[in-house]
């Protein structure tokens, strides 16, 4: 008998989707690769700044272990530690692989990989390729996958939309229901497993730094089918974006990595040309408040500081919600070489040349630390067992998630340049486990009654027919904008329970209005409207998860800042005191006088708070609402301690 060929369905051709496809093809499996558009146009191309790996080519003494520590600390200790540590230990090999695939990484004078600094670390750990690192990484993987396509292992279904998983009678995922975005046909496909590498959900906020297809719909579809969704309330607000009508374009953290300084005039509403304002009259608030990390404090810290300067101290440039990001102290040649691409974007969209005048920027929604819950299996030594089929599996057997779509690597706040890493890492790492999952199956999709597939298809056909019949008064695009406005107003940098309660009521109003939507186009050919209505429905569910998760989590952790529950770290506190404090407890020799009384009291508060809240948030659908529960976090490798970046 001929050997059975394994067949997988990968949804999404960003970094994560392409990486896993490449890995599966190497193991001679067939892959059906599905994407809204040509995979080469996936959102990953947007990433500008770089990708982290502790290769230490500058002799700074960096190591994967420090990378691991910086990442879990950056995430306020909310991430499970073994997967993060494994990622950091794999990072150097990933960079070398991408280099071998032809990514034009910037070089040192000797021709080795160049690294720059990024936020949340004191080391030069970020490899980069001009100012379009994501694009370059994506192209390299796209080319490898094109080769496998050429060789017949990959079948691409671009211009196709994933609608949902095909689940058999035991709740095991056996395939996917797909929607041809040109003909409008809906059909099911079988596979040994389905991987959701569908990216982030930032479109739920309307205007963000993300791309138009970052809608989180696939993740929400899994959630409606029973999958757990984790840490939804942890949304990263990037401190530096360019205001715009259609999108808030990112000004990469690499601008600060290359020495960019954030400031406002000390005098409120100062009308002078910024270049004429003397140094002494400029308020470099990040440098003054955080002398050690300066402009490279993590994103959550920087966004909060900008928010404070603009709204509490009322020092925004020209009285508006803007601060300066200044690179004008560098030569034009240097800036062109290191940051050319992103400075071009600024100039193209604002008309100003950032090599000559300081940029005007403001925080914007950027990234979701939360995502579909996924599993892992550690090897008992603080790393991951790469052969385990549990790695990256969602709570639905046979349904996997990778890349920004999963929740596992960034805790309560992601460090810059760690996402490209986690996307490629998850894609590559999960390959062997997927192969083993397929090997271990006693029944394959071919053995499942065909009615399971046809029923799944019929359900979705019915759903789309019903959407096309919606003839109400509400415009779906308008409603989407309003949904985003609710979240922007109430679930942003500073969170208050009264506002979050308001958000929940307003989202529920939008949900009610959703049933009165008009589907703006009912034709069959290349009609994006019914899909959009379906996506909006899914985004409303995500908004509910984010708002409710934020409301019930009564603490301040990472990107989730609730001033009411700020533990108020004493100014001179040193995080190592806490480690000593815990050690003393462990050895039963508590010496109250060893610490200043306010430190002692703070550490007690911190300990109590962690007992209650150092937990993964889990959302599951129940009666159309997210039911929130908590799971413990694996902190077996580094003791969680207070964060400090001064």
């Amino acid at each position, binding site marked *: 008998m001929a050997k059975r060929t394994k067949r997988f369905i990968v949804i999404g051709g960003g970094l994560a989707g392409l990486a896993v496809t490449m890995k599966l093809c190497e193991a001679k499996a067939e892959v059906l690769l599905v994407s809204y558009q040509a995979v080469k146009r996936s959102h990953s191309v947007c990433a500008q700044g770089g990708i982290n790996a502790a290769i230490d080519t500058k002799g700074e003494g960096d190591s994967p272990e420090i990378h691991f520590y910086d990442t879990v600390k950056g995430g306020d200790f909310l991430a499970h530690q073994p997967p993060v540590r494994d990622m950091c230990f794999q990072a150097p090999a990933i960079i070398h692989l991408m280099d071998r695939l032809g990514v*034009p990484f910037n070089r040192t004078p000797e021709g080795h990989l160049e690294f720059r600094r990024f936020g949340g670390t004191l080391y030069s750990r970020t490899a980069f390729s001009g100012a379009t690192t994501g694009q370059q990484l994506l192209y390299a993987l796209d080319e490898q996958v094109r080769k496998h396509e050429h060789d017949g292992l990959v079948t691409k279904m671009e211009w196709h939309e994933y609608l949902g998983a095909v689940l058999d009678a035991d709740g095991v995922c056996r395939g996917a229901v797909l929607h041809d975005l040109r003909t409008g046909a809906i059909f099911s496909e079988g596979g040994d497993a389905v991987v959701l590498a569908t990216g982030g959900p930032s479109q739920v906020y309307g205007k963000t730094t993300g791309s138009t297809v970052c809608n989180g719909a696939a993740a929400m579809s899994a959630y409606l089918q029973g999958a757990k969704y984790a840490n939804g309330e942890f949304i990263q607000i990037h401190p530096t974006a360019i205001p715009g*009508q*259609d999108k808030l374009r990112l000004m990469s953290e690499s601008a600060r990595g290359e020495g960019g300084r954030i400031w406002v005039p000390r005098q409120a509403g100062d009308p002078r040309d910024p270049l004429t304002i003397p140094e002494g009259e400029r308020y470099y608030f990040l440098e003054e408040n955080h002398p050690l990390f300066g402009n490279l404090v993590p994103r959550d810290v920087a966004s909060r500081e900008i928010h404070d300067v603009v709204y509490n101290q009322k020092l925004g440039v020209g009285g508006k919600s803007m601060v300066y990001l200044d690179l004008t102290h560098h030569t034009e040649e240097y800036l062109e070489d290191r940051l050319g691409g992103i400075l071009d974007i600024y100039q193209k*969209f604002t008309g100003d040349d950032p090599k000559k005048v300081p940029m005007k920027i403001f925080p914007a929604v950027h990234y979701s630390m939360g995502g579909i819950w996924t599993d892992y299996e550690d090897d008992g030594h603080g790393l991951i067992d790469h052969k385990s089929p549990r790695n990256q599996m969602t709570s639905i057997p046979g349904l996997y998630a990778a890349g920004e779509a999963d929740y596992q690597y960034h805790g309560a706040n992601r460090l810059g340049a760690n996402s490209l890493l986690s996307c490629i890492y998850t894609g590559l790492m999960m390959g062997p486990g997927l192969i083993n999952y397929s090997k271990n199956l006693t029944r394959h999709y071919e053995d499942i009654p065909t009615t399971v597939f046809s029923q799944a298809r019929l359900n979705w056909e019915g759903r789309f027919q019903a959407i096309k019949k919606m003839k109400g008064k509400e415009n779906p695009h308008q409603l989407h904008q309003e949904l985003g406005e609710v979240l922007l107003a109430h679930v942003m940098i500073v969170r208050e329970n009264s506002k979050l309660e308001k958000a929940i009521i307003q989202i529920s109003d939008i949900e009610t209005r959703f049933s009165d939507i008009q589907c703006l186009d009912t034709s069959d050919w290349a009609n994006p409207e019914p899909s959009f209505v379906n996506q909006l429905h899914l985004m409303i569910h995500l908004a509910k998860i984010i708002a409710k998760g934020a409301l019930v989590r009564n603490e301040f952790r990472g990107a989730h800042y609730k001033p009411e529950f700020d533990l108020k770290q004493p100014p001179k506190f040193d995080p190592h005191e806490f480690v000593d404090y815990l050690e003393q407890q462990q050895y039963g020799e508590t010496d109250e006088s060893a610490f200043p009384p306010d430190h002692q009291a703070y550490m007690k508060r911190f300990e109590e708070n962690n007992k209650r809240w150092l937990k993964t948030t889990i959302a599951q659908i129940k009666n159309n609402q997210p039911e929130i529960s908590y799971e413990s976090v694996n902190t077996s490798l580094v003791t969680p301690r207070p964060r400090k970046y001064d």
Partner: protein
Amino acid sequence: MMEALIQLKIKRQDSPDSKPYWEEFTLEHKPSANIISCLQDVARNPVNRSNQTVPPVVWESNCLEEVCGSCTMVINGRVRQACTALVDQLQQPIVLEPMSKFPLIRDLQVDRSRMFENLKKVQAWIHIDGTHEIGVGPTIPEKQRDKSYVLSECMTCGCCLEACPQFTLTNNFMGAATFSQVRLFNMHPTGAMEKEERLEAVMGEGGIAHCGNAQVCVEVCPKNIPLTESIAEIGRQTFLQLLKNLFLK
């Protein structure tokens, strides 16, 4: 050129084999508006100038910052990305048309899969032994890296092909973007190992010999890729290959 209203004139077509028609929209002017935000505004209120409610315009977009290549269309007669087309820098009424060198899907959306097929023909990839850990990549001088980088920024948008007189809807000319990718991969220390196969591919049908040297490709490339340089370089490489073939045969 700040005006209170924006006038849009869009060439629409419901399907590949239906007739095209023009439709006009009047929109409120907003600060820093671009063509994308205009089309989004149309979707929020899809009423044309004759006050008829119509289906929203269909177009392709994703990154909105000119790195994905999706939203390429012909704006006031010039092929470019809709995201970087700022309304205040455009003559009104603003005329939007789909690219004409690729099969039309609907309205402003076309099918550019031919470009990706060409990348397969020329093996636009690097052959590796495997993805397993086998150490560092080749040492590359920064100057050479810089040259590759410029070529590697090609986002397969198709502007160069839309503008090229040799590239038509029905022939099989590969066009500047593909030749430039051949140059990119032939330049890489590992990529160069398959140099001959790539050159053979562009020496055949639809290859470099059909380039008419009109030089318009380089003028419209949004990424300022030195396409004429790439064409000249691939011309040179294929010529040498040809000699080699003659000599060896």
